[in-house]
């Protein structure tokens, strides 16, 4: 099951990260927890996938990062959505809705 969950996650990880950051800035662990919370615990992002994805999105210019003090008074790297990141979120959301609608239809036949 854990394997299948991981593959499911792969295509949607970027979208979930963008969505998690839409409400406000978070550090890496925060992103992972927000995703867990948003999906009702269905998706647990492993650090081995999370950090590369965060850096990839930052590289793509969808995220920006700043160093700030975390809740336990330690320096942490906070990510926020950039303007292009927000645009990307809107695009990917509508794309995802199309796909999800199509698959729902297909499965209901």
């Amino acid at each position, binding site marked *: 099951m854990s394997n299948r969950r991981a593959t499911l996650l792969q295509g949607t990880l970027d979208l979930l990260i963008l969505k998690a950051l839409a409400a406000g800035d978070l*550090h*890496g*662990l925060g992103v992972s927890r927000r995703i867990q919370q948003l999906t009702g615990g269905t998706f647990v992002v492993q*650090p*081995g996938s999370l*950090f590369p994805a965060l*850096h990839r999105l930052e590289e793509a210019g969808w995220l920006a990062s700043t160093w700030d003090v975390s809740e*336990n008074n*330690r320096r942490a790297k906070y990510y926020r959505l950039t303007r292009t990141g927000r645009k990307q979120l809107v695009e990917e959301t509508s794309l995802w809705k199309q796909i999800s609608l199509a698959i729902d239809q297909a499965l209901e036949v």
Partner: protein
Amino acid sequence: VLKTWRNFVNRGRIASDLDEELASAFDQLVSERIAAGEAPDAARQAVRRELGSTPAIRDRVRDVRAGALVDAFLWDVRYGARLLGRNPVFALTAALSLAIGIGAATSIFTVANGLLLRAAPGVADPDTLIDISEIDRGQPMANPMVAYRTFLDLRERMTTVDGLYVQQGVPEAVTFGGAGDTQRVFATIVSSTYFELLGIRPAAGRLFDASDFDETSASRLAVLSHAFWMHQFRGDRAIVGDTIVLNGEPFGVVGVAPEGFWGTSVVSADMWLLVGAVHFDGKMAIDHRFFTVRDADWGLLGARLKAGVSRAQAAAELDAISAALERDYPNEYGGRSYLVARASPIPPSLRFVLGGFLAVLLGLVSLVLFVACANVAGVLLARSAARRQEIAVRVAIGAGRTRLVRQLLTETLLLFLAGGFAGLVVARGMTTLLLKLLPVFPVPIALAFPLDGRVAASAAVITFVAAVLCGLAPALHVAKADVVRGLKADIQGPSTGRLLWPDENPIGKFIRWPSTSAEPSPTTFQVVGVATDVRRAGVPVVRERRVAAPGNAPPVVVPPLQSSMSRCNSGTRRS
């Protein structure tokens, strides 16, 4: 590209940022667990399990960054250099044998480049300069020279060129100086268009130009070569406008050619005279037939193409002209035609001969290079067998096959790069030596074999092809290595003395080593035999027992093999 560069420049900061980011996440998880009532040590251990291997995460983050390949390549280069540095005897021997092979091939190419592909040094805009050879139809390797009248005929009729020049094919030996103080010098007779069409600027005074006449016996003027000027007059500018004595007759010196220009053929003249210097009686006499008939062999033709005209167009025009000339003068121009080629020191009709000769030489030299490659490939192969254990450990902690092949190829490339550079030095030495060893010709010869961009590019291509050809087999062989067997070999101790299994020699598929062939006769294979001996002898020297981290990062943090192997079995990590 910009990102790659930025990441490359900031790679230190990026790496430390990442470390801090991960450490911060780690700390937070730990403090949360402690807050929940766990013991600090237990909490730390649990988090470590939860987070997984930090170096692995770091590797994966690095891989998504732009320029990850550049980074990896730099690691490979550094690691490879370290390995080579630890086996200097192997590195030096291999680089040296490659240097000889690459150097020999590059030398031949340098000669071909200097004689066949490059215009003579000093001329301007060589791309639009052409050489024209007169040949007998059906005999393209004939004497390229023309009579002076032919130059006049072609000059009159050609429209695709800005102008035509002619220079005497074999320079004239003349006596320089008078009254007891004489020496023999060489003068080349040229048309007044010569320097202008070549785009040569004088070092002093002026060169021949349109104000000079091209009629025989019309003028007694001379342009000195720079070398002759320096040697004879110590670079004194006062010689311009002065008179020198040639064959007992006075000639006015109008100027000096620039340094580094000695004419457009392989013959280097001390001075240039105009056609006007020629007269058919007296002391400067030249066989008058050269100037009065149309089928004599006297001069070499060259021309400057008009802007936008191709060599093919000029050649087509010359075909038409030669047909017309044949009609007009059937006795003299019967069966003649013209060959056009890019300007170079060798006339077009002689390039086939020289080119063929150089091609044969290049073939021979390629054999030398091939032997050198086989030699090095053999040693690399032996090395790879000795490194089986290192590779096995790498695979076990998650290095991918492509990554390993890339690293091993980088090591080979490094070796070949050293060989290639040394090869260029060898080529330089060999061509210099060649110039020194030239036999004495009846006329002074000047050759230039510059190491220009084309030569460097050819050396690079030769090096690269050789590196891939002989690095690929060992690299693939190593990457194929069986992890479990490699690790077991470590347990048993690698000192079994058996380093290559007969069925594991991939080169054996292509080359029959003399030890297995019935009649090892020609020299080539004896040299290969030496190669195999080196291969065997080289093994103990080059054994490499260092353990390296996956993805080639230097820290040698080796996790317990059992756990990392189980991780490896559940799915190989892409690196």
